[in-house]
């Protein structure tokens, strides 16, 4: 497989335009094999477009993408035999039962671990002998998830996979992802549920208006982002509102609560003359990181 051995997904200046709308603009990234990636962005950022490009369902306006070293447009069949996809709009065949759907999808994929499939059915508490039509949205999602995991693919592409699942099933899903990670499977997870991404993903890729605005390990990203600071003074607090990167959240007789995204030395200099009783800095959650990037 050559260069594809350690790289699961590679996008090179991937661009997609729909008439006058640029859905994806010059997207370049590499995802290492065995990594679990959170793919984030607000609605219309280009997440689903990226996934559909990777699956070869749509073709790029320019640029290229590879999965396991194979071109996504030229080697679709080979690539698809190594991946599973859970679409965002879960459209299944209403006249089939859950089990019939799994059987059909398994036959079409070509490889199904029957024992594992049955374990997954139990794990997700799925009643497989009901018609898809009579399933709730969450149960339909479970069918898609079981279908994706049961083939034990090298790559899982998941578009909003926990949409409709209850919190208990979300935990089961996280367990499945952890298990996939242990097995060396690569996961590309597009999600809006930031706590989920924070809990299971190694790396995060953030899109905005078709462009990649941040990527990397979650902990690294957090260092670059806004931190929450609470400073308690023994005397009257100094005026630090003019320090670059400071956003005052609340001020009382002896306390200032603020958001900070700037040079810490400058902040320390501004309070060095005051009598500081305590200085508490908390790392932002992924949600705060997300908001700091997308809040206009």
């Amino acid at each position, binding site marked *: 497989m050559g260069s594809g051995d350690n790289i699961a997904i590679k996008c090179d200046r991937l661009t997609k335009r729909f008439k006058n709308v640029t859905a994806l603009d010059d997207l370049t990234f590499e995802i290492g094999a065995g990594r679990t990636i959170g793919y984030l962005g607000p609605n219309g950022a280009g997440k689903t477009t990226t996934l*559909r490009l990777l*699956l*070869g*369902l*749509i*073709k790029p306006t320019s640029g290229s993408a590879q999965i396991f070293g194979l071109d996504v447009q030229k080697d*679709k*069949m*080979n690539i*698809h*035999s190594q*991946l599973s*996809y859970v*679409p965002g*709009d879960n*459209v*299944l*065949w*209403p*006249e*089939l*039962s859950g089990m*019939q759907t799994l*059987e*059909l*999808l398994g*036959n*079409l*994929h*070509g490889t199904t671990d029957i024992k594992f499939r049955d374990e997954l059915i139990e794990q997700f508490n799925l009643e497989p*002998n*009901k*018609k898809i*039509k*009579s399933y709730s949205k969450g149960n339909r999602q479970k069918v898609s998830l079981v279908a994706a995991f049961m083939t034990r693919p090298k790559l899982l592409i998941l578009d909003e996979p926990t949409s409709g699942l209850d919190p208990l099933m979300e935990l089961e899903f996280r367990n499945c992802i952890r298990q996939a990670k242990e097995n060396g499977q690569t996961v590309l997870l597009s999600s809006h549920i930031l706590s989920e991404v924070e809990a299971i993903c190694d790396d995060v890729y953030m899109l905005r208006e078709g462009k990649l605005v941040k990527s990397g390990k979650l902990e690294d990203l957090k260092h670059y982002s806004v931190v929450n600071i609470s400073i308690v003074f023994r005397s009257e607090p100094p005026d630090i509102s003019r320090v670059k990167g400071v956003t005052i959240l609340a001020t009382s007789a002896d306390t200032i609560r603020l958001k900070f995204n700037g040079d810490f030395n400058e902040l320390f200099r501004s309070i060095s003359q005051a009598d500081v009783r305590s200085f508490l800095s908390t790392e932002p959650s992924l949600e705060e990181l997300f908001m700091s990037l997308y809040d206009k």
Partner: protein
Amino acid sequence: MTTTEVSTAKAVNAFNGTFEPFKYSLKQWTRSSLMYGVLFGFTLIGSAVSYLSFYHTSHSREVLSQAFGHNVATIALFGPTYDLNQLAGFLVLKSFFTLIIVGSMWAIFATTKSLRGDEDRGFFEHYLAGTVTLKRVYLQILCSAIVGLAILSITVFMILCAGDYLRHFGLGLYQCLYYCLCVVAAPSIFVALGSLACQIFASRKSANVFLGWALGLFYALRLVGDSGIGLHWLDFISPIGWVELLHPMIRPKPMYFMPIVIFSILCFLISGAMVASRDLGEAFYDDSAPRKISRRYLRSDLTYSIYRVKTALYSWFFAITLTGAVLGLVASSAGSTLNQSSIKTVFDRIGISGSGTQSFLGFSFVIVAVLFSFMSLGQINTLREQEIDGHLDNFLALPESRTRWILNRITVTIVSELIAGIVCAIIMAATGYFHGSGISFSISIYAILNSLPPSIFVIGLATLAFGLIPSKTVFTGYFVIGWSMIVEIVAGFGKASQYLLDTSIFHQISPYPAAKIDVISVVLMFVIGILGLIVGVYYFGLRDISSR
């Protein structure tokens, strides 16, 4: 905003919300009933004009009357015929049963769409989240359906009256009115029965299947009743039999409106009681348990595609084989009347010659070619639907090539057409043999093979559109078939230029057995169709998949 203004605004909102189901449903019913009303009206005008043109001598009318008036097959298929030497009698024979069947099918699809389809799609949830109950939604939709039936009847009446006035048919206001009421009787029955089926079955598809069987059963009962084997009482237990007994135009019997009205009211009352006692999305018959599907259908994309389209294919199969049976049964009688009427000149205009029976078959196989073309188009349209609703994504995200996906489905369509054609030929030859029409099996087979190229052409063109401009797939297919049909009709009414005739795909095939098979045209259409197919499949492989 003052308190009074707020309460007025609330009241207006509540009022609007209360009648939303009626307003939405009325739009759909009005549109389709107007369309069908115009279609029915002009069908009647066309039949009347053709009768007056082709059977303008009393001799030709007598021949027509003798050929069809006592023909058991004709009576069984289209009901008893009276006074065929008058326009009114001819209109009943020519159009009444066609309008009954088409009108019933329209009523079935429109009713199940409004009462179950929209519930399946989640529209009712929005209504019920407002100020209306499920029973009120049901009542409002039924009211809009009744308005739709009235629009259908009025439209047909107005067109028929206009034709009567302008072309001097000599029918009169009462005859026109009575005929229109009779035409709308069968759709009314199926609106009522449809409302019941939508409470019994939890999916539109199941309700449609049930109603389709009911229509078939009602038709079959009256068919046996009219077959002259002493079972005439069957007419009285079949709702289609009641409609037939109304005797539109000739010897009217309005008392048979009574069972129709009682049957409809009973259906409405029972369905009203059922809707009041059920929850949203539920039905009297619980079909949530999955059907047993043979595992062989789940083995591959090809086997599953056969499973998905088999119901539609069965219907086409039935329609085509039934056409074969009808042709076999009436070919002999029709052939003998053709020789005596001026319709032969029309056939000559569109290139059909030979003996009466041969001319009739040559013309009729154009209809078979139209059926085959619609069958092909229906299957290509299904491909587009699967792309739009997102099912295609499921397949193409798997190790499944686009080329194989599309070719599997097209192959299933072509093979089904071939099988339907062969069965049609066998049935036509068999029925023809028993009625002494002289249609041999070889003639039937050649005639069927001769009528297939237009459908291959349609497949090719629709696939080409599906590959290049997918949003125009349905339009392209219907345009080609529709245009070709119009050209054939126009050519029948007057002298048409050869250039115009050449634009019709149905004019490209020779009217075998009235003329020799035009091998060059057949091969040319076949080749063009296959070329379109290849180019369409190629571009489908390159283009973006555009789900909803």
